[in-house]
């Protein structure tokens, strides 16, 4: 029974990781860059939702949508100002810029909202029947898992079926050829950042609803964990991000419960190292042999 409780909490945490990891993996798949500022977009989403709920007194659903809109704009602006000018530059320059953007967002948040942690009020207002509550299932956990599944299905359909999704996959395979087929690569990359950032906002709200401490560094650890999850599942792969996120959440939760709370993070990263030693491209990553 206790195991079941920990498992549920792991799946719920893993779902948040999965939603964040989708943002990392999509941007990596298409722009071939690691957007380390992604975690901090989550934090911004959390703050926007917090303000909408507490200062503006908006209903929860409006607050979430507002957070999504702000984060989408933020994502597109970050891409346009910081990453787009570096499109031809080496990947290290982009990586360092991303780390810079990450610190910029954290410090800007500290300047605007202060360093004192805010107590986030959950956006989930219904409660579950006592029977479900007794096995450790909270309404937040249920919503988080459902949201993750819905996002996963919607995103897969979008990428596989829609025009823009096909353009994204075309860009991810060969930007040059895609351009010559009339695809606006810059716009496609912007759209990818928009979608990833909107997902980050959802992840931020869900994360803060389950773990209600909101501060400028709230996004950084989940961000790094989700990045790990994306690599774990095979970076660039959407189902990989989903599976990687879930597994990471479960491992973390069980490690906390049965091994050691303080060692939980070390265990998570140790598992990553082992997986990558056995399968360097991650669980669902494709091995692309280089032609010689």
């Amino acid at each position, binding site marked *: 029974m206790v195991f079941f409780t920990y498992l549920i909490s792991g799946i719920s945490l893993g779902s948040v990781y999965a939603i964040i990891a989708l943002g990392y993996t999509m941007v990596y798949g298409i722009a071939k860059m690691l957007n380390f500022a992604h975690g901090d977009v989550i934090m911004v989403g959390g703050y926007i939702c917090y303000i909408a709920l507490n200062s503006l007194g908006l209903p929860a659903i409006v607050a979430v949508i507002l957070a999504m809109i702000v984060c989408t704009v933020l994502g597109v602006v970050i891409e346009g100002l910081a990453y787009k000018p570096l499109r031809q530059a080496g990947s290290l320059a982009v990586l360092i810029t991303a780390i810079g953007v990450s610190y910029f967002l954290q410090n800007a948040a500290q300047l605007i909202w202060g360093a004192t942690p805010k107590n986030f009020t959950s956006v989930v207002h219904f409660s579950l029947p006592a029977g479900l509550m007794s096995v450790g299932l909270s309404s937040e956990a249920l919503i988080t898992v459902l949201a993750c599944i819905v996002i996963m299905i919607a995103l897969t359909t979008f990428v596989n079926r829609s025009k823009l999704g096909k353009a994204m996959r*075309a860009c991810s395979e060969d930007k040059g050829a895609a*351009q*010559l*087929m009339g695809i606006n690569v810059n716009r496609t990359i912007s759209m990818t950042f928009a979608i990833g950032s909107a997902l980050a906002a959802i992840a931020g709200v869900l994360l803060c609803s389950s773990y209600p401490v909101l501060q400028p560094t709230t996004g950084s650890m989940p961000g790094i964990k989700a990045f790990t999850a994306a690599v774990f599942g095979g970076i660039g792969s959407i189902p990989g991000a989903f599976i990687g996120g879930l597994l990471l959440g479960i491992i973390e939760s069980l490690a906390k419960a049965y091994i050691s709370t303080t060692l939980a993070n070390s265990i998570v990263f140790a598992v990553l190292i082992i997986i990558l030693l056995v399968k360097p491209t991650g669980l669902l990553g*494709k091995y692309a042999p280089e032609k010689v």
Partner: protein
Amino acid sequence: MNEKKRMGKAKMVPVPSKAIIPERDIDKAPILECSHLGIDFGGLRAVDDFNLTIGRTEIAGLIGPNGAGKTTVFNLLTKVYQPTRGTILLDGVDTAGKTTAQINHMGIARTFQNIRLFSNMTVMENILVGLHEEMSYNALSGILRLPNFFRSERIARERAIELLSIFNMEDTADAVAGSLPYGAQRRLEILRALATNPSLLLLDEPAAGMNPSETAELMENIVKIRDTFNIAVLLIEHDMNLVMGICEGIVVLNFGQVIAKGTAEEIQSNPTVIEAYLGKQQ
């Protein structure tokens, strides 16, 4: 190659200036007019003073020894490289300042010397990417699955099947592009380019790696495509049977400069061309 020798050579070579547009296109405005096109990579003049006029429905050939700058010309025409000098008029419109994607919308589509399909996507999806610009629904109606999404998606699929039928490839629609045999990948690349609805099709060594019977079939198909779509074709090719067989006008490039222009017969008997390919006779 030292600069002096090349410059010297350029002066020696008289370039016939007569137009090589086929008679049926003579009254119509040409689809492409390049004048004094050139690009430098650092100190290297990769292409210099390149002039070319292509008629509405002409099949033109661009030939020359390896490293002559043929693919560079394609890259200039599609704005993969920005030209250092000269102008390109496509259907009378200057293409200066346009991006690669915009050039495609304006009507130039191309294939690649080394096949560049989206190899993890299916044959159908590759063509649908080409049809991208024609599908009129926006992202929102795609996510919300509005009726115009299904309509436009259905029309695009029908168009894709129509295109595939040119090369009898309808059966392979659901196959992953990368798994197709080499010849079929080359054909698919041509179809993907055609899907963008071009008025000028650039083919970069379409017959590379094909056996003589495949090449013969390809020649028929290039003519068929030109006749069906009423478009102009400019092709780079080393297979002289193909070039001499279907190209109405031929341009010969050597060291980035046009050394001869003319019909197949004229090119074949041009001493400068023979020298460029075989070296000077002792």
